[in-house]
């Protein structure tokens, strides 16, 4: 778990009470309590203590963001406590150090008795042996037992490559199984819900999915049915596991039992190129890892950022990537005036139009889906042409967990860069009136279908020049005189400011299609054609310049934002 890289102003935390323990013979001070999955202080567990000592204890059912169940037994470790004499005083060795009693089975003093590290709190003087032979043996035994009925169908399992059962089998398991008996067969291809497919044979019954959907998503839809070897995860017969967070159970599932129907059989995970990006579906700005192979987007996965989304994200955002690579995607730059189809030609024409436009005859409608950098450049352009600018608000349903009612990823960016003030969209009627009375002759539209937001087709047809940049075709792009194909955010780099005022950067996962280019690139060129001195060859330079010019971003630098973003003043 990483923490935000920038120091946020907070009162200094009170000194923490610590406990001195030994992990693999090394003395260590660990805090007495640690935050649990909800952030409440709870006694520090052995597993957390081992993590602090730099030793990973293998586990399936334990998850830092879920309540502890302690049912997989994978985290069993050998331990010892200071020996107490009959007088309730510690027994000492000859050299004066406390004598340690290793925990053993009651009637078998030679066999170590392990404890599940995820749920056992530490106590002063305790010694943990996460690397001992006994611990190793316990792990081997647990893995063997988990694999008794496992179908071992890794070749067709989508989890292969990121499967904890595979990883731990290699790291902690035995090479062969001693079981020759027939495996128990359970239902495969169970349709759990519209987005989830369950394979009961692969399940290790860690109940992470049950706990997530009960305690985090608040839709208590899953349970364990049947008994013994036939235990299986199920939803109530006839009911669907269909809440908006169901796909998180796929990430949570340490094995391949729960798979995403969308990603199922699409690609083996080791072929995916993973890029740190953001979800642009709503204003929350969940951190994601985009998986793509050979310029084809295949999945979004949440990337843990406790300041924004924790380790979760909603299903809607996760599946909202297919439009980017749609067939009808805008991919040719074109000027309907001269028929020119090259960026140099069209940009020169656009520059000509904007240079000759009298003050007050230009208006701009800019989307809150553009990045801060692009909005900054567009604002510069607006100042140069004396244009009025506005953006369009996009309201929708929100929920208590992650989904924001603001469906624009960068509403705050629009405000902070000065494209629109407090309320978005109040200038639109003014622009419409300006076009109607012939005052406004040139309209620049970025990323919005303005025909659906108050500037209908007949209004647009009065314009002399309509300059449009967008990703997908719509009525506005059809009416454009100059069409500049832009990029979806997943195809470029940039920053967004989410609804809570966190500025986060995202990276480029795939190449744009055809002529499409990141907007900031061609906007920089356009500004240069209009005689501005700036020439932004790199996004880093552009961001740093914007940070200098924008009060809200003062003091920021691209290289210092970090993967988890920083808070800015709204």
């Amino acid at each position, binding site marked *: 778990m990483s923490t935000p890289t920038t120091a946020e102003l907070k009162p200094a935390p009170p000194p923490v009470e610590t406990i001195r323990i030994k992990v693999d013979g090394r003395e260590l001070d660990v805090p007495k309590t640690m935050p649990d999955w909800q952030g409440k202080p709870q006694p520090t567990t052995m597993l957390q203590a081992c993590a602090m000592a730099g030793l990973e204890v293998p586990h399936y059912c334990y998850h830092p963001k879920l309540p502890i169940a302690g049912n997989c037994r994978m985290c069993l470790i050998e331990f010892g406590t200071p020996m107490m004499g009959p007088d309730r005083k510690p027994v000492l060795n000859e050299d004066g150090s406390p004598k340690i009693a290793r925990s053993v089975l009651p009637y078998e003093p030679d066999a170590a008795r392990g404890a599940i590290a995820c749920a056992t709190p530490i106590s002063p003087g305790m010694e943990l042996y996460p690397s001992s032979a006994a611990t190793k043996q316990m792990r081997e035994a647990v893995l063997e037992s988990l694999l008794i009925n496992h179908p071992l169908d890794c070749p*067709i399992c989508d989890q292969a490559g990121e499967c904890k059962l595979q990883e731990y089998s290699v790291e902690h398991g035995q090479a062969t199984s001693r079981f020759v008996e*027939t495996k*128990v067969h359970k239902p*495969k291809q169970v349709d759990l819900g519209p987005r989830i497919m369950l394979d009961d044979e692969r399940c290790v019954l860690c109940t992470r999915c049950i706990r997530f959907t009960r305690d985090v998503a608040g839709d208590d839809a899953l349970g364990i049915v049947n008994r013994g070897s*036939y235990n299986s995860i199920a939803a109530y017969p006839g009911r669907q596991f269909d809440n908006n967070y169901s796909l998180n159970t796929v990430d949570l599932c340490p094995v391949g039992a729960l798979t995403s*129907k*969308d990603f*199922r059989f699409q690609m*083996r995970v080791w*072929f995916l190129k993973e890029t740190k990006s953001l979800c642009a579906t709503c204003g929350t700005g969940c951190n994601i890892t985009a998986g793509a192979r050979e310029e084809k987007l295949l999945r979004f996965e949440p990337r843990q950022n406790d300041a924004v989304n924790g380790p979760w994200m909603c299903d809607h955002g996760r599946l909202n990537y297919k439009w980017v690579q749609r067939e009808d995607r805008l991919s040719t730059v074109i000027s309907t005036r001269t028929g020119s189809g090259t960026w140099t030609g069209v940009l020169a024409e656009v520059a000509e139009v904007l240079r000759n436009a009298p003050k007050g005859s230009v208006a701009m409608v800019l989307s809150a889906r553009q990045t801060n950098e692009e909005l900054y450049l567009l604002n510069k352009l607006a100042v140069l042409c004396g244009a009025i600018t506005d953006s369009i608000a996009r309201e929708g349903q929100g929920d208590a967990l992650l989904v924001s009612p603001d469906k624009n990823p960068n509403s705050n960016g629009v405000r902070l860069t000065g494209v629109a003030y407090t309320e978005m969209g109040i200038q639109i009627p003014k622009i419409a009136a300006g076009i109607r009375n012939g005052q406004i002759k040139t309209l620049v539209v970025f990323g919005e279908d303005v025909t659906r937001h108050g500037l209908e087709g007949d209004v647009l047809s009065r314009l002399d020049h309509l300059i449009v940049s967008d990703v997908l075709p719509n009525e506005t792009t059809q009416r454009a005189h100059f069409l500049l194909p832009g990029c979806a955010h997943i195809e470029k780099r940039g920053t967004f400011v989410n609804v809570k005022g966190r500025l986060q950067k995202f990276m480029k996962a795939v190449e744009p299609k055809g002529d499409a280019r990141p907007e900031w690139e061609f906007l920089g060129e356009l500004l240069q054609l209009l005689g501005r001195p700036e020439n932004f060859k790199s996004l880093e330079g552009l961001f740093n310049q914007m940070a200098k010019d924008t009060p809200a971003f003062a003091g920021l630098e691209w290289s210092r934002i970090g993967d988890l973003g920083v808070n800015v003043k709204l």
Partner: protein
Amino acid sequence: MNNARNNLTTVKRTELTFLEKLYVPTLWSGLKVTFRHFWNTLFRGKVVTMEYPEQKWTVPEGYRGAPYLVKDTEDRTKCVSCQLCEFVCPPKAIRITPPGPAVDPTTGNVEKRPKEFEINMLRCIFCGFCQEVCPEEAIFLQKDYSLTGVSRSEMIYDKEKLLALGGVHRGPIMKWKQKADEARKQDAFKPE
């Protein structure tokens, strides 16, 4: 250092005699050798050449020819598109398109089969990694060594072609069948 040098044996180069220095006897014996071969080939028919299209080479066991996909004895494509061969292939000659989320109900326990499976025979180096890595025994290097085509695209063999060339593999292991049989047997023992 000295010790090492002392242990060395120096092999003296034999001085050549005058006759040897002339090289003429050597030349003569060389000419004899070549002439003997000439004579034997021309008049005694001792030819080592195999005249290819008419005479064909007997391919030895274990020969690594072109990799093809095989079907099992029940006419099922053995490949489950796990893409391990694609991953391991050193020249990246294999390209698999996985099937997508739709499951073919006729496949029983085998949920996955390739939608498309292509091997670019121009890139293939016949190393056999694909055969070695295959967990399903679905791809085998067979005996074809003479692959010809008139265009590059023709040399990219698709799934149908690979299956047709690969034929049937009569291996004793049929994982899907074993699993399906087990599962079928156990259906009867399932608690309500």
